[in-house]
């Protein structure tokens, strides 16, 4: 780790002012489970680190049927995993948060950090996207909102400007009879990172599928929605044949690369298998709800 300047502002205004003053090389520190590893071992040497630890008001979870779910960016993975409302109504998100790293990691890692780090394999990204989550952003130019699916520009890169802070997420209340799921493929059971991940939400309307979301992780430069696959589900009666066809559309939507975690062909194959499995689980959960 190289020497760096450390700031611990006590308000968002102060944090934004620091970012504005010092420019793009500055890194924000939340849980530190990505940043510190990169600084210690990954060759990342920011001249300045601005900690958000002393900034109040970023660590709340609230739910209101009409307003939906609101999660502060500093909420830990462990708190999301344990939250009953999220487990019941936003199951995929609880699953994504609950599989990151180890117990120790989840106690430190924050949802804001997981998203702002912009790894295509981020475990909370597909779940947020399938619930149409909106990212809340504040900067020197004021506050703005960006849908999570539009937040990413590429691996490690988001639309956030150098003086902007991600403050939280809002997720609309899902319709009744909604089921959701997040699954990832990793060689090991835990302490691993997704080679392919899939988030699915199905909201039933009578016996048919009302609204469907399929979001794929780690198979493109950013998470991607498989919109053709989603469209093929809307208004349809769920069936094995339909799900097989949709899984194939999702597979076609992915454009994975070959790297140390698997070849492109392997990932391509898994997208089909996992989408099919996730559709089955999401349907079952939707029918139970």
């Amino acid at each position, binding site marked *: 780790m190289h020497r760096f300047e450390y700031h611990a502002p006590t308000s968002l205004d102060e944090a934004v002012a620091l970012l504005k003053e010092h420019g793009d090389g500055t890194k924000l520190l939340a849980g530190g489970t990505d940043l510190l590893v990169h600084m210690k071992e990954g060759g990342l040497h920011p001249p300045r680190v601005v900690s958000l630890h002393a900034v109040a008001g970023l660590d709340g979870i609230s739910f209101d049927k009409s307003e939906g779910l609101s999660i502060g960016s500093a909420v830990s993975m462990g708190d999301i995993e344990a939250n009953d409302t999220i487990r019941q109504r936003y199951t995929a998100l609880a699953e994504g948060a609950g599989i990151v790293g180890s117990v120790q990691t989840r106690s430190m890692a924050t949802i804001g950090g997981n998203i702002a780090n912009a790894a295509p394999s981020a475990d909370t990204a597909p779940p947020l996207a399938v619930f149409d989550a909106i990212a809340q952003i504040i900067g020197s130019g004021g506050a703005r909102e960006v849908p999570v699916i539009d937040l990413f520009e590429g691996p490690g890169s988001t639309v956030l400007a150098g003086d902007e802070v991600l403050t939280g997420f809002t997720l609309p209340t899902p319709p009744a009879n909604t089921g959701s799921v997040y699954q990832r493929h990793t*060689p090991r059971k835990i302490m691993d990172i997704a080679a392919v991940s899939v988030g699915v939400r199905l909201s039933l309307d009578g016996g048919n599928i009302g609204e469907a979301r399929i979001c794929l992780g780690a198979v493109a430069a950013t998470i991607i929605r498989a919109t053709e696959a989603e469209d093929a589900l809307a208004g349809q009666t769920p069936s094995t044949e339909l799900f097989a066809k949709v899984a194939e559309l999702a597979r076609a939507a992915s454009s994975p690369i070959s*790297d140390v975690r698997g*070849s492109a062909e392997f990932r391509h194959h898994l997208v089909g298998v996992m989408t099919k499995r996730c559709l089955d689980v999401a349907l079952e959960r939707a029918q139970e709800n």
Partner: protein
Amino acid sequence: MTTYSSVGKPITRIDGSNKVTGDSLYAGDVQLPGMLHCKLLRSPHAHARIVSIDTSNALALEGIERVITAADLPTFNPKRMSNRAYNLLAADEVLFYGQPVAAVLAVDVSTAEEALDLINVVYDELPAVLDSLAAMEEDSPLARAPVTEIDRSESKGHVSVDVKEEQSDKPSNIASQAKFSRGDVDQGFDEADCVVERTWRSAMMHQGYIEPHSTVADFNAASGELTIWTATQGQFFVRDQISNMLRMPETKIRVIGTELGGGFGGKIFLTQTLAAVLAKLAGRPVKIIFTRKDDLQGATPSAGCVVDLKTGMKKDGAITAIKAKIVYDAGAFPGASAVVGAILLGGYYRFPNLEIETYEVLTNKVSVGAIRAPGAHNVTFAIESHMDMMARELGLDPLEARMQNAVSEGDKMPSDVPYTRIGMKECLEAVRDSDLWKSRGKKQNGNGKARGIGMAVGGWLGGLQPASAHVELNGDGTIKVVVGANDISGTNTSFMQIAAEELGVPLEMVSVGTGDTKTAPFAGMSAGSKTLFTVGRAVKEAAEDARQQLFNIAAERLEANPDDMESVDGEIRVKGSPDKSIPFRRLAGITTGFGALYPPIIGRGAITARKQAPGFTAQVAEVEVDEETGQVTLLNWGIVQDAGFAINPLSVAGQMQGGATQGIGIGLWEEMIFDDKGHLMNDGLLDYRMPTALDVPNIETQIVEVPSEEGPYGARGVGEPSIIPGAAAISNAIEDAIGVRVTEAPATPERILRALGKI
């Protein structure tokens, strides 16, 4: 049957509580006044000429004391430079990605790391030789200048084989080779009803010890004394090597082998000489602690291997012939003992006809070293898969086919050396009777997942090296045992049991300590499954010697014959006359007190080991394979191992579970992945995957005891065999489950899907 009071009992490790509470002192805990921290700049290229190194910017950084390059180091006889140990820093040419090029000495670790980025090295890249098979071709570019001399002194600590290996007479990437033959293989294959011919690949993998390489060196210029605190399995080996390299008398070198956080063959000798030289140059103590990345890029992992194997079997299960070519990828310096692989490949079964060629090939990768049973898992993956495939094709029971052909006492290895008494068949018998093996074919598949059970055996010859020990009577009548062996596996606990047994005292009366090279009696390195086998014998002999001294004094005091003495409950007494006794405390007084009548009691044990006691294991894997994703889940694992005599069954079972877990890692996850330029792609534990607690199933251990000739109480080496058959057992279980064979270890989901034709 002899009954024992201390040996043969399960005892928790005496060093256990200190490890759990964090009170153990490791080399990394050593802090000395004025100590400097060293970080190594590593080569970003697999093969390149060093054009220039500019250290001026690094030196200008506040807190940097010295930046050392090869130009600052002592030079060695060019003949020695084929040996990795002598290449402290690369001089003109880098031979592998991660090879140290410069050393920074700073007041703290972070400053040292920062300075690494300020060193400007200009490289002239050279073609990297990465594929061991291509490297053997006559027209292959050379990975490095041909080797001039191969130093096998370190690997001999792991296994003793007396076979001459040959070196190539013209420039070649082949560092060493050997050939074994017996009978007529062509005729053997003609007689076979089933011939299987496949190529088996196993990856370069890492020992994966928890504690990275750690050394602190302090050179006292006034006295000329060098002190080294280091994580090593062989402190005397470190001392001897430094003495040879730096031409210092061993009287001036004190190596203190600190508590060790795992070694598995990979923690013998790596950074100690460099630390010593740097301390001497800087005039201040120097600490080198590797990061995990340092360890993965630049330690001494286990060789990758390709085995071309052809075997034949008759309908009745009799094996007829084996023909094989083994190629170990040694990386940039010799370090893979090809001979041992050949002996094991053709040495588990009585092949009447045999032809095995074995090669150690140099490439531009990090050079390899020992691991638990170096080279064994690679060849066992091949032969144990073949035994399964041949039995399967002929409709024979794979265990019975092994039993029918298994070696036993007197059978010859490919080197023509006959086996001493071994327990391979006893291990197979125990597996045959196990519930797990009997459950074959009786479990239901479910959820689109297929279940399968496979087994494999493994054997290891073991090392031979002399050892010595002291046993003393303390002033309060308790017992002190001093050894020079670094305890990597609970051996000191077993030594305590041995001393207590021989002296007839309770365990609480015995303490065991590992001294350093200045204070302890000599012991060979703790490797080759031989610490208890050799040092344990020395402790036993020393305890017997001390006992005799106690008997002699007690006999004189009690006016009895020394031959009539016995030691019971902390006193020496006349057999049959319990009232005629003298307690240890009293004996201590009259041998250590002021004006004592008798000299102190000091028992001496010094042995040399001449007869190997190979250790065998048989293991069973039960897997569940997801045929759509290729994911393998281990459901159960069984391991049977011949311990000869389990002096501490708890410790033996721990060794068995640990080795089996490493074997599982080799079978399913562990693989160092290099890109086409020779860069290591997975230099952290996220992508170099070792199994976690959730990935390893319940491991059922069963110890069988076929006594060795020389080991204490019949004990034989138990450390290494357990790692050997994992990959083969898994491969066999996978075929049992899904009907296809994965010929590459680890059996990743991707390789399974390819074998299934799904991608």
